[in-house]
């Protein structure tokens, strides 16, 4: 399942990681192909499914930064490679969202593209997209990292440079807002 692999990919084997850190192109390719699904999904969701061209640009930029910073990544450090890469992607997107020319995104409708098989699920997906899009950036990031990428509170706190208490409170507010939105849209069965 694509969704499953995109949540939190398995780690790169040690030798491939070391090769990638030394600039081995084949190992770079392995790394990108392993994590591209998760990074693309994260960026796409943080942009609430809008601005497809910016999504691809930011995914590419994420991996360029990952590869440049990779020699400094410590495999024995507190963050897994997966979390470290998702952190870079998250910070990059949040920085981009603060750019003046990205403010216009707020007025774009969420992406309508769907690949779902049944109409009910499609409607629910569209409602979730719209609900996530109306969340403040900070809440959206916490919700996406938690709900879609399985980062724990401490990892989210590190990624967003927040304390764990703030992560918990933002997550609670985001979930409450989403629940309210989905009920109002008539798709949430609480």
């Amino acid at each position: 399942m694509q969704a499953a692999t995109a949540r939190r990919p398995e780690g790169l084997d040690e030798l491939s990681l070391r090769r990638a850190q030394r600039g081995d192109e084949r190992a770079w390719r392995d790394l990108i192909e392993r994590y591209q699904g998760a990074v693309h999904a994260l960026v796409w969701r943080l942009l609430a499914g809008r601005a497809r061209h910016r999504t691809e640009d930011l995914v590419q930029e994420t991996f360029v930064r990952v590869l440049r910073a990779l020699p400094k990544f410590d495999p024995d450090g507190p963050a897994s490679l997966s979390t470290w890469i998702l952190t870079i992607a998250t910070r990059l997107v949040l920085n981009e969202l603060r750019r003046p020319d990205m403010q216009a995104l707020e007025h774009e409708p969420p992406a309508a593209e769907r690949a779902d098989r049944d109409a009910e699920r499609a409607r629910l997906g569209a409602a979730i997209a719209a609900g996530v899009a109306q969340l403040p950036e900070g809440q959206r990031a916490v919700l996406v990292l938690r709900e879609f990428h399985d980062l724990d509170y401490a990892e989210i706190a590190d990624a967003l440079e927040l304390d764990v208490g703030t992560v918990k409170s933002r997550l609670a507010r985001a979930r409450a807002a989403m629940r309210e939105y989905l009920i109002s849209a008539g798709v949430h069965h609480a």
Partner: protein
Amino acid sequence: MRDDDALDLSAWEAPPPPDGLADAVIARMGGTAVGPAMPAQDDETRRRRWVVIAASAAAVLLVTLGTWIIVRGREHAPPTSGEVVATRAQHLELGGVGAELDRGADVTWRRDGATVHVEQKAGTAQWRIAGDQQVVIGAASASIDAAGASLRVEVPMNMSDTRVIGAATLTAAAVAMVTVVVYEGHVKVTSGGQTVVVQPGTTFTVPPPAPPPPPEPEPPVVGVAPVTTHGGKQLVAVLGLETADPVGRDLTEGLRARAKVGTGPYQLAAGSDKELADEKILHDCENEAPSCMAMIGDDLGADALIYGQIASPRGGYQVTLTLFDVHKKTIERSLTEMIPASEAMGVDLQRHAKDLWIKLTGTGSAATTCDADALEEKGINAESTGQHALALGQFEQALTCKPGDGRLVKLAFMSSCQLRNLGVARRFWRMLPPNEKQALLQMCIRSGITADDLDGGGASGG
């Protein structure tokens, strides 16, 4: 771990990433130093890069499309069976199953419905298998069963083995360990009657098969061998020379072939054909400090290491080799030699490999009057080019230097079968260890000589 107040948001599925992402990223990394520096880019620069990448991609797409249209006109589906020996890195597409083959990879395949049966005889291949496809890869003593998976299979084997196996069925002792790296999906590895499910993100190594029981009982080797366990010989690991040039790989294989012959004080340690660069990475070695090299040697179960580098100044290759004693943690010998570019391939390169081996290990002096190694090498080279009579002559001559040598007897037997010389074949057939006869018989059968012919005492040819 889920939270009590978690929502089910799974209906909001993200689209898949765009194709060619890795290519685009690596293209952007090209020409930039790998390091922590992150120069700022303005939008204009990015836009220009996108234009260049898009233009390149469009050109490639057009060429690919044109090629595809031409090819499709000739064939509508991937072939159901085939064989490839990659002379360079190449892609193999089998419809729902794809492989990136490294140079030297030797693969045969046969499709049976949704299952592809592969025999990966040598080399490295990275396999990608769609969810509705199944691939069963036979690699040395292992069988790898994968579906909806991405994995890398490494079957190292040296050149000498490849040639011998190409001419006969001497497989068991020749094949080194198999390494399976699973990136994603469901992969099972079966070896020695045991099946292991290899989880994504992990590496599984299948040890080489146990050698056939020797004609005379020897004490078993258990665990990591201490000094001198192979008939009084030290086990040596020849690490892949550090160079990006293919000459380095060929020279490494040549040195390993010498070690495998085992005529000097050294014998190749099983499963030790690793790259110096990789071993240094895995052992956190910045250089070839004795403590590091000793650690590498210990892990490989070797008493000695041979390693080195190749530089390629104008006109040739400068080879630096070191023989390292793992237990004493000292360099026993080192040398630097120049190989002219005109001699950096084929038989010439193997001759250099042999000379370097002799100089480094000091095995040459005793063999100046009757050099079995050299004769064997000539015989193998002759056999690989179909000169069976010449090969047989070399092996027989080598046997005069080393009477009764098991390896030479096998080689001579195989050449005599290729030559369809029943009389000579019978002579060597009688000298073969009984437990190896059946495997070697296949060569003769292909030449029309049966076991009855070899066992019979009737008319003899040649």
